[in-house]
C-alpha cells in the first residue's frame, strides 16, 4: 500500500474553530479511516492564529503567520494508506471540510529506504 498525506486548507479564519457538531463530524471521519485500518498518522492541527504562526524568509525576514499574504491557510494534515491515489481521493471526498469552503490536497509520500 502507498501512503498519502492529506493537507487541509481553509479560507476563513472564522472556520478554524469548529462547533461541537463540526468537531464530531471530523472525528467520525477520522475514526472511520482508522476503523478501516488505513490511518498511518493522525497528524496534527496547525494553529494559524497570531503568536502561533510565523514565516521565516531569506535575509532574516520573519513575518507573522501565513495569513497576511495568502488567501487560504493550511489548518492541518494526516497521513493515510491506500492502494491507489484514487482511493485516497475517495476518502478525502468524505471529509466535511468542503461544507465550509475548505479544500484538501492529496500527496503521495515518497518513501526513502
Amino acid at each position: 500500500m502507498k501512503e498519502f498525506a492529506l493537507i487541509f486548507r481553509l479560507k476563513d479564519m472564522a472556520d478554524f474553530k469548529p462547533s461541537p457538531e463540526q468537531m464530531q463530524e471530523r472525528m467520525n471521519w477520522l475514526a472511520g479511516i482508522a476503523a478501516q485500518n488505513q490511518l498511518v498518522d493522525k497528524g496534527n492541527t496547525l494553529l494559524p492564529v497570531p503568536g502561533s504562526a510565523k514565516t521565516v524568509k531569506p535575509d532574516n525576514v520573519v513575518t507573522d503567520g501565513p495569513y497576511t499574504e495568502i488567501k487560504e491557510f493550511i489548518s492541518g494534515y494526516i497521513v493515510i494508506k491506500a492502494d491507489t491515489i484514487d482511493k485516497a481521493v475517495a476518502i478525502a471526498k468524505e471529509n466535511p471540510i468542503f461544507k465550509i469552503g475548505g479544500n484538501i490536497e492529496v500527496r503521495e509520500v515518497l518513501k526513502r529506504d
Partner: protein
Amino acid sequence: MTAVLCRHFGLKHIEIAEDMASDTFLKASEHWALHGVPENPTAWLYTVAKNKTKDYFKNISAFETKIRNPINLEETQDEQHFEYSPEIIADSQLAMIFAVCNPANSNQSQICLALQILCGFSVEELANAFLSKPETIKKRLQRARTNLRNDNFQIKKLTGIDIKSRVDVVLKTLYLLFNEGYFSKTNHKQVRIELCSEATRLAVLLTENPLTNTAQVNALLALMCFQSSRLAARTNDRNEAVLFEEQDRNLWDQSLIQRGNYYLINATNADEISKYHLEAGISYWHTTSTDKKKWRNILKLYNQLILIEYSPVTALNRTFAFAKVYGNRKAVVEAEKLKLTDNHYYHALLGYLYSETEIPKAIENFETALKLTKSKTEKQTLKKKIKRLIE
C-alpha cells in the same frame, strides 16, 4: 505460597518452590483430617512451609554446596529472614505477576502461566478453560517456563524501573486474562466467572502497592468492575448468551458498578488517557440505561479508541455505536467500508443493520455469520434471528 517461596529460591527454581507448596498442602490435608482444621490455617500452612524451606537449605548446605554451585545467592534470600506476613505475601505475589508477564512468551502462554502460578489452576482446569487438550497446555507451560528461566528476571522487591519496563505487559496480560473469561469459548459459566475474578483480584493487588497504583491500573480495574457487574445477566439458566439489550437489568450488580465508578475516578488523577480509560468509559456508559447522550458519548470514546489502537472488534463496535447515533442506513455505509468479510461479527452486524430495511440482505449476512462462527451460543443466537426474519 509459590510466589512467596520463589522470593527465597529465585525464579529459576520455581519447581522446587512449587513442590514445596504442594507438599505443604498435602501435609495439611493429612494433618487436618486427623486433628481438625487449626485455628489459623494460613499461619499453620506457612509455618510448615517455613520448616520445609529450612530443611531444604540445610540439605543444600550439607551436600550440594560442596559438590555443585549453590543456588545463586544473589537471587535468593537468607533463610533467617524467612517470613510470611500479609505484606510479604502481597509483595511476593506482585513481584510474581511482573515475573510471569514476560514478553518472551506469547500472550496465550502468559495467561496460562499466570493462571497456573498465580491462581493455582491445574492443567486440567486450564485445558477446560481454553478448550484444548491437557498435553497441549502442558507443552505450552513447559516452553513458557523455559523462557522465563532463560530470561533471568529476578524476583525480589520491585523497583520503579522494573515496574516501568513491565507494567504495560502486565496490564495487557490481566486484560487478556479477564477477556478470556468474559468472552470465553467455553460454555462453562463457573470457569468464566473464575477467570474474571482472578484477573480482578490481581488488578486489585496492583492498586494496593503505591508503586503500581497508577492511573492505568485503576482504569483497567474500573473496566473489569463494570464488565463483571453484568456477568450474571449475560447468560440465562440454560447457559445461553443474553444480548445486552435483552438483559435483565435487575441482575446487574450495583455494588460492582459503584466499585467501578470509584476506580474510574481514581484513574482520572493523571493526564494520560490510555485505552483502558476509554474502554472503562464505554463500559461505564453501558451501565446507564436511559441517558440520551449515552450513545453519542460511546461513539466519541470509540472514535478515540480506534485512533489509539486498531482492532477489528473496536472497528465493529464503533460502527454499532454509529448506528445508534445516526441510524442504520448511514451505518451500513460505514460498516461496508470495513470489508472484514471473513469475520463473523462483521456479517452479524450487517445482518442487524439490514434487518429493518432489506430483509433478504439481512438473512444472507446472518447466514454467512452462521457459517463462519465456531461458537455454539452464537450459532443459537444467529439461528433465532434468521427465524424471526423469515416469519
